[in-house]
């Protein structure tokens, strides 16, 4: 696309001389392309590296030091059980989060949006504050909560310290204030008359929630699910802090172990593992672009 072809339908720069406008455009594109260079370079490297024997900068090198050295051997890890175990753990955390955050947020968000009960105001204010509050600093104390949970007979084996369930539970809790706040917003937008009609038709509040209201917030729930899935899939700090060893490691932790535990690091293999774990994310990235931009705006999740 050259600047000459670009018609300005949305922002007609009326009154500006054509030449200046053209220069401004060039400057804008130049700036934007420069700004995304680190991202483009980073992704280019990972793609080149996974398919080559060795890289120097962005250039693939063969054993003799020349350009080339194409190989698929970096992907050999897919035949290794460890990666599939890590992937299974990642999937478990992500899916548990989708369900956990989904259920707790739609139920809690509904009650906070539509029901009158003692403590509603207090809960709402608390949700708001927790939503802005970053909980990373609580991890030290959550460590002890998880150890206690681990001491509970039977349940402890699934949700305690050094268990995938425990990691999932912590992740669910940390995403919950955001989830509740989002879902409450979606419920706030639904007409009251529909709910009143259902109550008069004989439905209980639970039935109203499940059969009438939930189907109306499906787009919101889908967005929240996508968001929590990505958060769960990418989770690093919480699983890294609360798990030991490879058996319970999820993909990011597994990858980090691969980087730090092997010396010298085989960067090309590491890159391949990294790209491998990004496959679902790249699929979302390609197919839900509009939704993603919206989620991260409404999600108010920054770092």
């Amino acid at each position, binding site marked *: 696309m050259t600047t000459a072809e*670009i018609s300005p*339908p949305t*922002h007609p*720069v*009326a009154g500006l001389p054509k030449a200046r406008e053209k220069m*401004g455009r060039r400057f*804008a594109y130049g700036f*934007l392309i420069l700004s*995304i260079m680190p991202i483009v*370079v*980073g*992704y280019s*490297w990972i793609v080149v590296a996974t398919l080559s024997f060795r890289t120097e*900068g962005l250039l693939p090198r063969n054993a003799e030091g020349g350009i080339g050295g194409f190989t698929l051997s970096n992907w050999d890890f897919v035949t290794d059980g460890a990666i599939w175990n890590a992937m299974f753990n990642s999937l478990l955390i992500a899916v548990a989060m989708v369900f956990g955050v989904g259920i707790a947020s739609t*139920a*809690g968000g509904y*009650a*906070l*949006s539509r*029901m*009158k*009960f*003692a403590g509603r*105001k207090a809960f709402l204010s608390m949700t708001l*504050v*927790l939503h*802005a*509050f*970053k909980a*990373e*600093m*609580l991890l*030290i*104390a*959550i460590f*002890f*909560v998880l150890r206690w*949970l681990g001491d509970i007979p039977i349940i402890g084996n699934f949700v305690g310290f050094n268990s995938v369930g425990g990691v999932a539970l912590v992740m669910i*809790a940390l995403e919950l*204030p955001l989830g509740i706040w989002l879902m409450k917003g979606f419920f*706030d937008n639904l007409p*009251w008359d529909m*709910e009143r009609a259902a109550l008069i038709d004989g439905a209980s509040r*639970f039935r109203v929630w499940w059969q009438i209201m939930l189907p109306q917030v499906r787009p919101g729930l889908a967005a929240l699910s996508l968001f929590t899935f990505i958060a769960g899939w*990418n989770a*690093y700090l919480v699983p890294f*802090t609360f798990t030991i060893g490879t058996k319970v490691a999820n993909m*990011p*932790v597994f*990858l*980090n172990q691969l980087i730090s535990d092997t010396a010298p690091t085989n960067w090309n293999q590491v*890159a391949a593992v*990294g790209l491998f774990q990004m496959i679902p*994310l790249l699929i*979302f990235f390609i197919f839900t672009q509009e939704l*993603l*931009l919206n989620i*991260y705006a409404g999600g108010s999740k*920054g*770092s």
Partner: protein
Amino acid sequence: MTQSLEKETDTGVPAGDPTSQRSTLARRVRATATAYGFMGPAIVLVLLFFIVPGILLLVLSFTNLSSANFSDPWSYIGFDNFSRLFSDPFFPKILRNTAFYVFTTLIFFNLGLALVLALVTTNIPRRAGFFFRLVWLLPRLTPSVVYIMMWQRIGQADPFGIYNQIVPGFLGASGGNLFLGGSPWTFVILTNGFVGASFGMIIFTSALESIPKDLITAAKVDGASLWRIIRDIKLPLIKWPLLFIATYQTLSLLTSFEYILLLTEGGPGLFTTEVWALTAYKRAFSSYFGNSQWAFGATWAIVLVSVALVLAVGYVKLFKFNELIEEPRIENL
């Protein structure tokens, strides 16, 4: 006019003395119970992972609990941890680092670059703007470990580093490892900024796009230049989103440390890029000094948690989120 109860069968109204105090109370209890049933999972999780840890953190900071004396936990040692914290030789450095990290990242990336990106991408054709914003979203979507791996690879020493290959010797020592040698702060801020900027960018973009087109057209008719339109019309109109991002991201940067942990672990050397949140985490969890000092780590954490909590409450008040709260228009019977 409360009339005596007559047994009715054809109205579908169940018999039951409505005036009795007990039945009223029972209904009220049941209505509240229903609401708490919905709230149940959320309440349990918030209690277990926010309220209890918050209290625990405070309690811990007054003990000397560590992996060295785990057999004799919870012995009260008063404010020893706090005096130790403030007399720590590296305390001033960590404080300076934290302030530098938060403000530099905020000004140049999370606020500054975010605003520039939003302004530029809304002033070019729609689809092109969308494309660039989408690419900018990638870092946020990338798992932190992979993301940091990319930056490490960019900053690595010759012959592997990409930066050294493209522009040799521009930042710091030529050919050396940039994030562990030449300019660690540059890389710490770049890695955080490239994730942080996209949030502001998205928020500012939607704010800019909601400015009525008539306003811009009117300004153009008046002969205003692009720069004047931005300065006199657009910026004043997105004042609130700007303030929102500034406070939200301050809070966010203050407590986040994941990327620094992955990139430099606070190094190179002693506390070069160590921020407050990372110190708290490392004291408690890494056997940096051969011992997980949970209580001392908790002390660092509780100070930061208190600051974050005050900021969060202030932020909720500032943006009057409470006024968004509406009374439910169905009352439980």
